């Protein structure tokens, strides 16, 4: 009998059956991949396990004993620890305070010693082979990737027997993703139970020994990893065949320049960037993590001040705020969708028109008819799956939320699209839809600047690639034949693409 069993778990939310007789099991030393589309029930299963949701039915058994999980704290006390897809760090607190939040051993004095906590933090960095950060630094000053690493460290620090990694690699660079995989292997050797959720099949294949596939709220397959074919897995996840993962590459690049950056500098993060983006072009932005890619996008959307010139249609523009950028026909799909992309507590309808309120105005008042037209047009264009336009965005699955972000930013009818990691934490089926959308917009002559943490995606989607290093454009690869993962790394190290 397996050491850990979740049996016949059911969980309903108003209007949705998120889990329907779902099962899961694992033995000590297993690394089990949990696969499924967004909305298949993976996250709900994890939330049930971690005490965030109470199941309507079902049983959780660990080493022959039925677990009673009342809330998140009781889950952690029973050695169930998770790294969540959505970050759970407190931005205003320091690294050390976040790591020990709620779980600091105070002893009799009931006092927290900052010094002791910071020392323990340094030890943790060493123990897990990380470059040490200042434990007294506020978390809000960290990059997204650093925050994700910290999130992982926080879970590791709680020393669970059952460890869950929900999309933990989606914000990490390749280097840190490899670091995490080494740690996970080490945990498995220590006979812990690992549940690993990721949308990157190559990663799962490298790491996991078993795979359980979820579809429509229940488990549909349980296989040994080496016996599972990629196509088979994708078919199981979707319940239907899908063709090639990436759409066929075509070039829609025109002669005319859509936007040009001349000697753009911003703080220490962007230095002397020169860049030409043409109409219909899909220009990828590559390089190691944190080399100024994020700042490049922020500067182009008026979110950080810059020196130098940005030229659109032959005219020098001043991008002092997102409002200016939208007026100039620029749209940004931002990095953190729940914090920057959509208002989770508002409806799909309210979100979709939020960036384009001027388009639904009749003089003084908003026109319900115009609003309805734009909302239904955009919901169709991006195949947003929801009961109605009045559904709150916060209740949608991650992939559908991302579609609403795209719908909202593209409702402004932009000419220049800045897409920052649009497939982060999105399932295979939705990814494919998104690549098709990118291609469609390029074919309509829109200029697209495309960043992804997944180099594979850059290689398969973009017509040209710029590689960034230390805030500068280290090089540009235009020849279709030369766009490969190896060349992107070569260029970032200052060599030529071959």
């Amino acid at each position, binding site marked *: 009998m397996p050491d850990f069993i979740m049996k016949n778990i059911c969980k309903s939310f108003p209007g949705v059956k998120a889990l329907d007789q779902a099962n899961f099991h694992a033995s000590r030393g297993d690394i089990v991949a949990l696969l499924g589309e967004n909305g298949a029930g993976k996250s709900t299963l994890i939330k049930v396990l971690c005490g965030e949701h109470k199941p309507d039915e079902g049983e959780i058994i660990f080493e022959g004993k039925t677990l009673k999980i009342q809330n998140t704290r009781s889950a952690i006390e029973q050695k169930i620890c998770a790294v969540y897809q959505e970050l759970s760090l407190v931005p205003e607190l320091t690294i050390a305070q976040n790591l020990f939040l709620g779980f600091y051993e105070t002893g009799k004095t009931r006092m927290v010693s900052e010094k002791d906590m910071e020392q323990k933090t340094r030890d943790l960095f060493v123990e897990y082979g990380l470059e040490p950060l200042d434990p007294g630094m506020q978390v809000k000053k960290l990059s997204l990737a650093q925050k994700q690493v910290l999130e992982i460290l926080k879970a590791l620090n709680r020393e669970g027997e059952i460890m869950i990694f929900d999309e933990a690699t989606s914000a990490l660079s390749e280097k840190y993703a490899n670091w995490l995989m080494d740690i996970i292997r080490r945990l498995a050797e220590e006979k812990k139970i690992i549940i690993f959720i990721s949308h990157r099949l190559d990663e799962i294949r490298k790491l996991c020994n078993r795979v359980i596939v979820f579809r429509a709220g229940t488990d549909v397959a349980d296989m040994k990893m080496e016996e599972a074919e990629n196509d088979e897995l994708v078919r199981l996840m979707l319940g239907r065949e899908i063709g090639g993962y990436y759409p066929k590459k075509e070039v829609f690049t025109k002669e005319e320049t859509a936007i040009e950056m001349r000697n753009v500098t911003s703080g220490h993060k962007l230095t002397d960037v020169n860049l030409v983006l043409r109409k219909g072009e899909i220009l990828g932005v590559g390089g190691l993590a944190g080399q100024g890619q994020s700042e490049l996008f922020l500067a182009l959307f008026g979110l950080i001040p810059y020196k130098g010139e940005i030229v659109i249609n032959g005219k020098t523009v001043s991008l002092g705020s997102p409002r200016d950028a939208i*007026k100039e026909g620029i749209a940004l799909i931002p990095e953190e969708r729940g*914090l*920057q*992309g959509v*208002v*989770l*507590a*508002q409806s799909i309808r309210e979100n979709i028109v939020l960036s384009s*309120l001027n388009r639904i105005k009749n003089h003084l008042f908003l026109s319900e008819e115009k609003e309805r037209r734009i909302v239904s047009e955009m919901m169709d264009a991006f195949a947003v799956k929801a009961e109605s336009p009045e559904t709150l965005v916060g209740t949608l699955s991650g992939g559908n939320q991302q579609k609403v972000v795209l719908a909202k930013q593209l409702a402004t009818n932009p000419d220049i699209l800045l897409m920052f990691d649009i497939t982060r934490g999105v399932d295979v089926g939705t990814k494919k839809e998104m690549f098709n959308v990118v291609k469609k917009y390029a074919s309509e002559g829109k200029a697209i600047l495309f960043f992804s943490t997944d180099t594979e995606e850059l290689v398969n989607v973009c017509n040209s690639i710029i590689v960034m290093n230390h805030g500068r454009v280290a090089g540009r690869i235009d020849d279709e034949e030369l766009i490969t993962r190896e060349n992107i790394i070569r260029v970032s190290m200052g060599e030529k693409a071959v």
Partner: protein
Amino acid sequence: MKGNVIFKKHQNLIFSYLAALLLFAAISVYKPGFASVNHIKVLAQESAIIGIVAIGQTFVIITGGIDLSVAWMISIAAIMVTRLGGGGNEAMIWSVPLILVMTVFFGLVNGACIAYLRMPPIVMTLGMNIILQGGLVAVTQGAPGSYASDLLVVLGQKAFLGIPWLLWIWGLFTVLAMLLLFRMKYGRELFAIGNNSVVANYSGINVNAVIMWSYGFSGLTAGLAGILLAGKVGSSYLGMGDALQFQSIAAVAIGGTSMMGGSGNYLGSVAGAFTITILLGILAALNLPYGVQKMAYGLIVLGSVLMAARKIKNSR
């Protein structure tokens, strides 16, 4: 099904009105005179003043802020309208616009400091309230105001077609507020900012300007309420707006607008204004000592705010 959806969406609103009605029915049984036509008119006039102050307060609270300077904006408006140019009917042609421009300006100063200089709303508006108080005391040298003009007395105390003038005015401003909140761009921006100002900024909304103007509106409605209050009372005195500060905030909270910002409806604040007036009426009718009345009033209002807040939480 459809009716059910509508009920759910407006649950907070419906509960606010039910609460007001229930209170009213209960006291009417106990004190039959309470439900007489004349007394209802008095209650409506009281509510109108609270309700008008609550318009701007609702806007500000939807952004996640609060306006604690309405007390002395009201006093300033009331004192000025009875004293400028002798306080007669003719003087009002210029004194009323002047007063409103002034209170809007004070509101905009609040808003500018909160939005652009990142002052916490509680500190900023409380500071403004004290400055206004000091300023008014300095200028008037502590002397009370004067009598309201005939026209103001008509607006504040008389009725038109059987309905008090104050209700007509309140109704007009309620319609305007609802249009602004739910039919115009400004309202959408207000709600988006209250929920998540980062997303609002990324969506191209001029977040600072929208916040600044919400305080400007609050200045406008406080000024208007002060002018009308002078008419209702028949004269003006220092500190006559003090009670309205808490009442306007409580009306918004009882009406189901979240004190955290991001959701709400002015129609709820209207119900909240009625609830508070009825409550004060009940406490007065019970013949309790003044101190006990005050305490009971504070406790009951806090209790209903708590209940409203729990309802908001559950319906989310």
